[in-house]
Every structure is written in structure tokens, then in C-alpha cells.
């Protein structure tokens, strides 16, 4: 199994909290890898919220190719974090040349671009870099987005964190998502490591999606360049989230109606029966069929958690105003937010979507049986 931990905090915190919480839950994962997603960054990135940050792993040659490529398209380095690692990596961790976290200045001609044009272009560049890297096997690119840093590596999460010295001020963030364990059903590949990210939407998942193949086929056939990869079955959750929000204009409260729709009898009694029936029919190929617990992050920095229809995976949300955590197990929550009212901890069940908004003041629970907000 794998274990998930996410935290949203008013004040930027070290990613080590998440990785230590992960370590508390170590009985539940095999320590074969770690993925980290940081957003709403503190430290030096606080001042450059709009600058796109490239996260990835590069060989010496890949780094030179990256520099040439970025120069050619007019991107200038604005700020970078240098991660110096000991000569010998811990057991099971491959030797890498460069873990890159670099913020760029947009090219001047991008000044006229609309927000959505910029987002499309950023995606395009990330995919281009990924393709270049896959061709020569010299770059792995996780994200290229403002105010977002991602790190993934094979190995025991805590050992990797110590090795990369992640407990540094530059990496403090208000939103942190961490996942322990590589996806081992498919070949070990960093692109199969959670969390997954596309255009501001991130998610990580516990459990295997049994409907992966038809869902992947459906997403691939949407003709959207970002819907690619799928080294892990869990990447589909991120893309479905992106699809429902950006292409269908639906709110997060509708996400669960897409991936785990209500049964017909419940839909018939629902206030939005007409809409839900249409969604269930036209998005039928996106029904996940579990067993999965999904934790995700939206562009407005909200964190959310949903369970599959059978609720076969663990997941709990708790905290106090100003700091909330989402964890696979209560022990992870206890470690990260010990000073909370435990009676308020909430384990979402088969109908719930739990959301902690950008204000981080409360846990809101949205039940599938409730009416949906009006469509925008």
C-alpha cells in the first residue's frame, strides 16, 4: 500500500513535517519512493509568486540542453535553489547530477499573453522538455508552474529527504502534499510517482484504479496535449480533475459525481437530478470504480479528499483553524497537528468530499446527496 499526507498552513512550514508524518505511517508503505508537491511557497519564492518554477532532475548534459532551450525561447533564470548532495547516495537511491528548482522570468513577448495563453504555453514547454528528456534520457521534468515546486525520488522517504537536505528555509511552503511509495504495479519510473500535476491541479492517490485502461483511453482521446503520460494509473485522477474543472467548468463538489456517480435511484431523488443524469451518462468513461482515496490541490490552494464508492481506503482530515492536515492514518495527523481537537477529525465516507479552502479556517464537507452550487 502507499501512504499519503497533505497539509495546508497559514504560515509556511518545512516539508520535513510531511515526510516525518509519512515516516510515522511507515508500516503502511514500503519506503520505495517519495513524491513531494509544494505550493504557496514561503522563503525567497514569496517575492516571485508569478515566476514559473521548473522542477526536475537533470544530468550534466541535460542541464546544458535545458539552458540552451530556455535561452532560445527567451526564458531567463530569476532564482534557483542549488541542492548539493553527498557523493554517495543512501541505499536504493540512484546517483543524479542535478536536482533542479529554478524560477524563470517570462520572455518579454509573453507580456501580451492572456492568463490562459500563458498556462497553455507553460504546459507546452513542460511537455517539450519531457519529450527531449525521454529521447536522450537526460532530463526528468515534474512541473513548470508559478509558485509550485515538485520533487520525486526513489528510496526511503525520510532518507531521501535527509540526503537532499529538504529541511531548508527556501522550501518552506503553505501547502504540502507528500506520497510514500513508488507505483510498483508498473515499471519503476519517476513519472509514475505521485503527486501528479497539470496546470495548477495536483493530486495523489492511494489504491489502484481498476478502470484505468478505459479511462486512459478516454483521456488520451480528448486530444488535449497535457493528457499524456499514464506511467501510473493514478495520474488519471489529476487529469479528470483538470478536465472537469477546465473543460466542463464544474466545481470541486461535482468531481465526485464524475468519478463515483450516485446510483440511479439516488439521482432520481436528487435536487440536481437532470444535471447528474447527464453527467453520469456523458462522463461514464471517467467512473473510477476504486478502491481509491484521492487527495488533491486546486489552483486556489484548496486541499480536498474524496473516497471511492466502496470506501475501501483509509483517509482522515483534521486540524485547527490555520492548519489542517489530510492523512492516510490518524497517527500521521497526530504527528503533524498534535494540538487539534481530535473529536473534530473527519474520515470521509463514500459520499463525501472534504475541502479545506484557501483561508484554512474550517473543514467543509460536501455530501453527494446535497444540491450542487449553480453552474458557472
Amino acid at each position, binding site marked *: 500500500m502507499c501512504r499519503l499526507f497533505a497539509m495546508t498552513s497559514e504560515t509556511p512550514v518545512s516539508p520535513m513535517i510531511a515526510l516525518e508524518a509519512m515516516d510515522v505511517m511507515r508500516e503502511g508503505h514500503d519506503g520505495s519512493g517519495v513524491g513531494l508537491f509544494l505550493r504557496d511557497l514561503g522563503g525567497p519564492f514569496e517575492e516571485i509568486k508569478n515566476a514559473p518554477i521548473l522542477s526536475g532532475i537533470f544530468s550534466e548534459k541535460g542541464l546544458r540542453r535545458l539552458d540552451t532551450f530556455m535561452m532560445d525561447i527567451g526564458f531567463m533564470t530569476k532564482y534557483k535553489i542549488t541542492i548539493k548532495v553527498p557523493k554517495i547516495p543512501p541505499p536504493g537511491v540512484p546517483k543524479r547530477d542535478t536536482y533542479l528548482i529554478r524560477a524563470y522570468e517570462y520572455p518579454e513577448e509573453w507580456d501580451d499573453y492572456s492568463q490562459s495563453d500563458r498556462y497553455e504555453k507553460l504546459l507546452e514547454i513542460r511537455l517539450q522538455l519531457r519529450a527531449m528528456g525521454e529521447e536522450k534520457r537526460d532530463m526528468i521534468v515534474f512541473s513548470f508552474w508559478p509558485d509550485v515546486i515538485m520533487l520525486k525520488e526513489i528510496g526511503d522517504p525520510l532518507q531521501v529527504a535527509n540526503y537532499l537536505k529538504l529541511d531548508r528555509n527556501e522550501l518552506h511552503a503553505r501547502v504540502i502534499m507528500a506520497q510514500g511509495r513508488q507505483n510498483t*504495479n508498473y515499471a519503476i519510473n519517476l513519472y509514475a510517482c505521485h503527486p501528479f500535476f497539470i496546470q495548477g491541479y495536483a493530486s495523489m492517490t492511494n*489504491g*489502484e484504479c*481498476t*478502470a*484505468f*485502461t*478505459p479511462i486512459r*483511453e*478516454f483521456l*488520451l*482521446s*480528448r*486530444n488535449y496535449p497535457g493528457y499524456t503520460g499514464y506511467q501510473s494509473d493514478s495520474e488519471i485522477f489529476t487529469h479528470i480533475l483538470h478536465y472537469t474543472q477546465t*473543460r*466542463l*467548468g464544474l466545481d470541486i463538489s461535482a468531481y465526485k459525481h464524475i468519478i*463515483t*456517480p450516485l*446510483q*440511479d435511484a439516488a439521482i432520481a431523488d436528487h435536487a440536481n437530478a*437532470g*444535471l447528474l443524469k*447527464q*453527467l453520469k*451518462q*456523458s*462522463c*461514464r*468513461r471517467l*467512473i*473510477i*470504480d*476504486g*478502491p481509491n482515496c484521492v487527495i488533491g490541490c486546486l489552483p486556489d490552494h484548496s486541499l480536498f479528499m474524496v473516497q471511492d*464508492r*466502496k470506501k*475501501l481506503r483509509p483517509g482522515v482530515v483534521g486540524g485547527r483553524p490555520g492548519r489542517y492536515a489530510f492523512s492516510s492514518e490518524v497517527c500521521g495527523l497526530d504527528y503533524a497537528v498534535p494540538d487539534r481537537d481530535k473529536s473534530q477529525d473527519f474520515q470521509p465516507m463514500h459520499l463525501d468530499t472534504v475541502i479545506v479552502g484557501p483561508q484554512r479556517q474550517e473543514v467543509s464537507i460536501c455530501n453527494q446527496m446535497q444540491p450542487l452550487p449553480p*453552474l458557472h
Partner: protein
Amino acid sequence: MQPNATIAPSTLSVKDLPWQILWHKDKCTLCGRCTAVCPVNAIELGVFRKRRIKVSLEPQGNPSSGFDIFHGIRQKTDPAYACVGCATCSLVCPNDAILPMRSDEADKLRFHINRGGQPRSRGGRRNVPGGILDQIKFIRISMLTDPALDAGRHEFEMRTLLGRILPPEQNLKFFNENGWIPPVREIYPLIIGGMSFGALSPNMWEGLQMGVAYLNEELGMPVRMCTGEGGCPPRLLRSPFLKYVILQIASGYFGWDEIIHAIPEMVEDPCAIEIKYGQGAKPGDGGLLMWHKVNKLIAAIRGVPPGISLPSPPTHQTQYSIEESVAKMIQSMYMAWGFRVPVYPKISASSTAMAVLNNLTRNPYAAGLAIDGEDGGTGAAYNVSMDHMGHPIATNIRDGYLNLVKVGMQNEIPIFAGGGVGKNGNLAANAATLIMLGASGVQTGKYIMQAAAGCLGSETDRCNICNIGRCPRGITSQDPRLYRRLDVEKVAERVVDLYLAFDMELKKILAPLGRSTALPIGMSDALGISDYYAAQRLSIKYVV
């Protein structure tokens, strides 16, 4: 026959026939039931003269002889009366004195069954047992990575959609703007395929309808049944149960005068309209109801004179292309019911099926495509069409689905598979295989006849006389002396039995795969086969 008599080319001995009647003189009571019941008059009362020789035990005694007469059963060897192996004689024999046995070598009858220049026609399926569907197994079992579900405990939603589904973006837009959204039916994925009123006896048809009504009304299973090309009884057209019926229109348009005139009086819309362009059992050939079966009732429903053969043309005479067909027929059928009823074509599986499917993708009205493979059954067709014409269903369905995936319309046009589903009794496994290859649901007719009414037909050419109206079970006969053998209520009960059993078996397949909230359409990663080339062709796993 005398040893020096002339032999005609078609003179056969019992040995030359596919079935030989074994008759036990010592058990036979000479009651005559077997000869009375034989649907093809293959046996008759025989009067046998037998020479009896008496040999004296005295050394000087002379042997003498005399003649005895005894009565029994004689098997006819005239090709027109050859035994079909139905074994109804055995069924009625009070002493188990009679049994047809299959010949130990290929029969010679096959060379003589075209007398008068008429090639053999028959009912049933392609006379080739086996098939690839039974070789495919479900290999993606949920083990420790994800828990297997419990077929008896977890909730399952095994429904499929019949109708044109809009892409999600367009669907939401039309929903918000009150645009026209094509009608979509949520139905059970196993449909009773088109078997016409006429091909089937009134008792069989009524039994099926009763079973379907019970499944819907009492058990909440949205099972649908297609009428086949033969119209629909007027009372059913005007009843609320019409919503469980898919009305079929085919190239003979039989019964459609009655249907069109009933539209203003319909209290419910039919589930859908199926336009039959082809049938898997006899691709490129039209429907056929032979004169034996066209009695007054059938003639009235179909709007034809009684006692004449009713061959439907191979094509719809008013249509020359798929474009025209779609434009004319699909849209006018939509119009007839105020755009509230899905309309979809049914074709026989063919290497040209992709062209049809591609055309349908470009028409916003096409509600789906039913493809009928070479193993489909029929009430009447030329033997050559059944045995040698047609395309296997598996590759057609797979190609069709992958083709839709390529254009991103796999959810928009449901494909329904038919033809040999449950041919070897493995209905649920075959259905699940086709669904995972990409079908939205399956249609079956023959299995229903076998399971719900005891049809004896087989792919080793047993019985298969649906065409002549002498069905020994009363399933495909219009003779009240035959069809009264079939108890309507019992047929309905068997329909319910087989659906409930299918439902449980399907759950027993899906639960270990970890699927329950949606039908696993296109879940090809679950399929494996030990035939390398078949695996390559179907894009599924090769496992040994």
C-alpha cells in the same frame, strides 16, 4: 430393396444418414407415439417379414422353415425424411425403446439434400462448434494491490446505455441552454435479440414478454427485448409494456403498417427502434419466413396474405448508401416518435463494418450500432449462408471500439455485440468478454431459446428445422398442436431464472476484477488468451 434392383443416385441406406434410429424390439410397446411425434416423419410403422428356421435336434430330422410377421419402427431413407436427431421420439417413448444415434462417419445425405435444385435451407446457427470467445479468460484479478469485491455484498450497477450520448462539453452546454439531447435508455446489458413474431410461436413470444415484464416490474432489471422483423401484436403496441420492447424494422417492413397506425394510441414509447440491415447468420441475405409458418394470425400482424413465403429483400430497396440510409431512415424514425426514441442500425459483422461505424460517428442521430457475428442464429436461411458467410464478432467489436477510441467517441456511440454469445453455454463469460473488448452490451436469441424453452438445436446439426414450422418444442412453430406443448408461464419463469443466473455470474466475473460501479466497457487489460496471434489481433494479453 432387391439386390438386383436399380439404384437411384440419391438412394441412401440408413448408414448414409447423419442419424440412425436405434430401436429395441423387446422394449417397444408399439404405442405409436414416436411415429406420431416425429417432426420430419423420419420413422413409420414397419411391418417386417422374418424367416424362421427350425432345425430338428434328431439326427435324421429335417430342418424346416416358415415366415413370421412382426411390427416395429422403420427409418425412412428418402433424403426428404431424414432423421434430424431431435430425439423427440425418445422423449415420448414410455419404455426408452428408441434413440437416434449420430453416425460414426460423415453422412452422405449432404450430397442429396438439394433435390429439385433447391439448396438446403434450415434454422439454427453455423454448424461449427467452439469459438474464440470461450478461449478468452479474465486474468486481471484484484489481489493485494486492490481488494477483490464481494459479488454477494457490494453494490453493483450493471447497466448500459442505449442511445447517442453527447460529448461531455456539448452535453452540459445543451443541458444549460435547453437544447435537444438525444434520448438515452439505461438498460440491462443483455438484450434478447430480434426473434420475430412469426419466427417464434405465439406461446414462446408471450412467454418471453411475460418474463421480461416480470424482470422489469418485480425485480427492477431493465431487460429489453427486440421484436425482430415481424411487427408487434396490436395489444402490446398499446400497452405500457411497450417500453420494454425494441421494435425492429427491416427490409421487408413487415408489420410496420400496424405499428405506424398504432403510434397515436401508444401509451408509452418503445425502448428503441432497431433498423436491421443485416444478420450475422446470413449476411447479405434478407429475412425469411417460409409459407409453412404464415398462418392467419401472422399474416394479419404482418399485413400479408396467409400461406405465402415472406422473403425480405437483402437490402432496403429505397436506400443505396449508408449516408442515405442514415439520413432517410434513422431521422424519419426519430421523427415518428417526436425525437424521443433512440434509433440505431443493426448490421452483420463484416470487414466493411468500420465504414458503417465511421459514417455513424458523423451523424448526430445514430443511437448506436448493433453488430451480429457469424455465429448468430436464424429461423431460416440457406445452409451455405449460415456455414460459410460472415465475420467473427470478436475482431469486429474490437476494431469498432478501438476505432471509436481513435476519434474519441467511444462513449458516444454504444456498440452492441451479437452472434454466438453463450453458444457453448457460457453466456456470462462471453458477454463479459465482449464488453471488455468494447461492446456496450450483448444481444442473444439462440441461448434464450435454449435456456427458456428447451430448444434442441446445436452446432453439430441437430434438429435445426426452425424454418419448416415443425419445431418439436413448439418454439418456432405456428401449429397450435405443436406450440401448445410450450407452457407460457414456464417460459417466463425460465427467462427470469436465466437472467438472475446471468446476473450473478456477471458479478462473479466483475467482482474479482474490482469492478462494480460501472460496466467494464473496453477494460481490455483484464483479458488474456493463449493464442499469440489472437492476442495481437485483439490487443489483449498473451498468456500461457
